[in-house]
């Protein structure tokens, strides 16, 4: 019994040398040039997006809303302008065709 107590006491006396005081600093400094891997993952993206709105960050939220607005606006404009261009082309070809017909009759 006494031997067990003594044995535990001896084990607890095991010595660990003091850590160098600058070890934490060295590790932090060594990490600086590397940069963490920031690979794109959907979970990370969803987490960031939810945090933008759940934890209010007005600037980010405004920027996201603006980006969505500009994008949808661009979609609408480009579709509309394509239709208008096609209508103009049809009209001008009709006018040109008519003129040529008139010109031919006079000769």
């Amino acid at each position, binding site marked *: 019994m006494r031997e067990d107590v003594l044995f535990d006491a001896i084990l607890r006396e*095991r010595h*660990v040398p003091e850590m160098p005081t600058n070890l934490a600093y060295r590790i932090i400094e060594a*990490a600086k040039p*590397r940069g*963490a891997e*920031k690979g794109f993952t959907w979970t990370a993206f969803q987490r960031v997006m939810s945090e933008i709105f759940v934890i209010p960050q007005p600037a980010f939220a405004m920027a996201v809303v603006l980006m969505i607005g500009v994008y949808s606006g661009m979609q609408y404009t480009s579709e509309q302008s394509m239709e208008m261009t096609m209508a103009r082309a049809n009209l001008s070809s009709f006018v040109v065709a008519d003129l040529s017909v008139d010109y031919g009759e006079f000769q």
Partner: protein
Amino acid sequence: MADYETETDESLLVHVQRGDQRAFAVLVTRHVKKFHAAAYRMCSDAQESEDIVQEAFLKLWSKPQMWDPSRGAKFSTWFYRIVTNLSIDKMRRKKAIPVGDVIDVFSDTRESQETELYEKEKQGALEGAIQSLPERQKTALNLCFYEGLSNREAADIMGVSVKALESLLVRAKGALKDELSRRGMLTEPARRQSYA
């Protein structure tokens, strides 16, 4: 800006996963001493233990996605596994220190008072005896006895069942007891005389 000092390890890790250097710094400062001691107990080499703990933290920084919060593991338990595995890798590459060597180093270089010498020799003998244990027994002893982890946590880190871990612990303590007893360290009056 959030006060990182009061945040949990797991919460800091989420910041680290986004490349937050400040959160990483807080995590390092908070745990470096504990993991340095753990690495030292595994390899019994001051320089090596510094390298191990540095390598482990840099590994965490360069690949923070290694830690998966959905598994619900505590950071410290998970990080013990990294430090332990790195230590084992280093030890395997390095030649094992024979039991008597540590004692010889102390007795050759130190010529101080008798008590101090006795303490040094005792530490050397203990360290040598622990280092001479089989790798898995030593790891089990370090994690449970010195790091204060529960049997379940230590078993998870080592990838064994709790029963197997308990068996490793019993064998480790038995072997150590035999070794220390053989050296006369378990009989108080005899201890001093044998080293005097």
